[in-house]
């Protein structure tokens, strides 16, 4: 993409030179003034968000006011997370966006982008807060159950063998659990532990307690390297 702009620039300079020549002005590429057809591109640190500033010389720093505007736009584009975004900032201060190679669409900074670009609204901070709180509630409920000896009947609780859900390896399920002589999901192994070391009753698959315990285990093990073992 960047190479494309360099080629465009070269062609532009050539055409521009011809235009100047036509106006009886000397051909001095070095002292050329900024024109509408010149662009300067600025790429954000994630290398996925690029602003093409139209009418700016590529070989000189942007004027401070323009630079501020570009920085603000890049910051705004960060909510597209991992998407590849190209923004054209015109000399009339209009913004056109292309997300993941889709055609350019007019865009107003801070507002929702055209749906055609993002296939739906991006998550609002409020939504994300709600989801994070719900997630935390479920994991916290699982945390309590995991440390609760009343799940079983003999005083034993899950954390006594699995501090921080260690040695549970949820990522290895489904697997053939040799000791059970059948395929097992994580919940089957949880139930086995409830019935055997804890000497309690097993939970049904839809029991919110079962779901919460699974949520806690998965939360604790997130990001832990997968390493298959014998047990």
């Amino acid at each position, binding site marked *: 993409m960047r190479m494309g702009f360099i080629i465009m620039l070269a062609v532009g300079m050539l055409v521009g030179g011809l235009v100047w020549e036509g106006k009886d002005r000397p051909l001095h590429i070095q002292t050329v003034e900024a024109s509408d057809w010149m662009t300067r591109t600025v790429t954000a640190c994630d290398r996925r968000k690029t602003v093409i500033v139209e009418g700016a010389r590529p070989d000189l720093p942007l004027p401070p006011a323009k630079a501020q505007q570009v920085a603000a736009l890049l910051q705004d584009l960060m909510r597209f997370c991992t998407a590849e975004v190209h923004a054209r900032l015109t000399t009339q201060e209009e913004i056109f966006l292309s997300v993941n190679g889709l055609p350019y669409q007019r865009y107003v900074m801070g507002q929702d982008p055209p749906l055609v670009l993002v296939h739906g609204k991006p998550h609002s901070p409020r939504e994300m807060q709600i989801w994070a709180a719900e997630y935390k509630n479920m994991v916290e409920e699982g945390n309590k159950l995991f*440390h609760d000896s009343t799940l079983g009947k*003999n*005083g034993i609780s899950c*954390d*006594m*063998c*699995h*501090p*921080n859900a*260690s*040695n549970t390896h949820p990522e290895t399920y489904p697997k053939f659990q040799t*000791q059970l002589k059948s395929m097992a999901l994580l919940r089957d192994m949880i139930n*086995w*532990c409830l019935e*055997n*070391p804890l*000497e309690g009753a097993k939970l049904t698959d839809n029991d919110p307690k079962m779901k919460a315990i699974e949520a806690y285990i998965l939360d604790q093990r997130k990001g*832990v*390297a997968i*390493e298959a*073992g*014998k*047990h």
Partner: protein
Amino acid sequence: MTRGDKQRADHEQQRQRLLQQLRNCDRRTFLSLAGRYAAMTVATGVVAPHSFQLVEFVYAATPETKPEVAFRLAYISDTHLFSKGMTHRFAKAALTAVEDVNALDPQPDFVLFGGDLAQLGQADELALGQQILKEVKAPLKVMVGEHDWYFDLGEKWRELFGQPTYSWDHKGVHFVVLNSVVEKDFWTAKGMTPMQRMVTVAGLDNARQSRFEVGAEQRNWLAKDLAKVDKKTPLVVFSHSPLYKYYRDWNFWTDDAEDVQKLLFPFAKVTVIHGHTHQLLTNRIKNISFHGMLSTAWPWPYAPSGLPKLTIQMDRTDPFDQFDGCGNGTIDVRKDGPVNKNYALWSRNPLTVAYDTISASKAAAKGPSY
């Protein structure tokens, strides 16, 4: 004879026969014998603890250099008994350990109990523990663990077993028992009941409690106690938590470990034997060798970081076998002072961590992650 005993006796017998053949053998014969030993291990149907047999073989192949053992101790640790009587699975496991040490021939000079006799420090849990430990034939020394202490801050435990900090001399070795599970008061400010305090300390993966320490009072006592001891006298220190810093988040930790170690550094031969971690654990800091004790109740997984590099890691235990990763063990005190630590794993081959191998300070191979 218990199941574990039988298995160990069979194993010992086969092993002794093999060791006979090992005398004067060359490298090739040695390797072939090692192979046969591995096959024998598979045939007995027990899980090999690790690739440790070969290390044992190197040691055993030169019996003439094996320093003589002066005397043997045994240990039982971390029984975590509930108030549910003799039929609870942990009580049965503790009784198995007692049978094991009672079956030792010759009998150990004494048996150390490594702490965490009770699960939640209840009077009837501790009384049940005392009743089980009364069955031990050899003289008994008892150490305290945090599970014994934080319901009534040691009141019942002291009534049953006396003071938690003491020392004595035995056959030229100075023994010390510490209470290393002292915690700074975290409960008063939070308005916790005794049971809430106990349950908090009993948990591993909560950040609500303080870290273990020996504390200034006991360190002063230790300094005074050791002042009377000749620096050449071998020292064996028993502590419930490891007297070094392994993993803070699980309290596999003693906060003032460095201060305690400083008191031990002037002595030529020092061994620290600790409970609490429920796993094979070996460390060495300068002149101090550290050994973990097995639990009879359940094994802990290794912590995500901080594992001492000398540790030969136990493979992941089989959750379907209550006894896997559990056991008891013995401590052979050599005539020259250091000790060899024997792990009598109930469902695996016995394993010895010899002083000669740890003093060579070679890092063990990395084990599986937990």
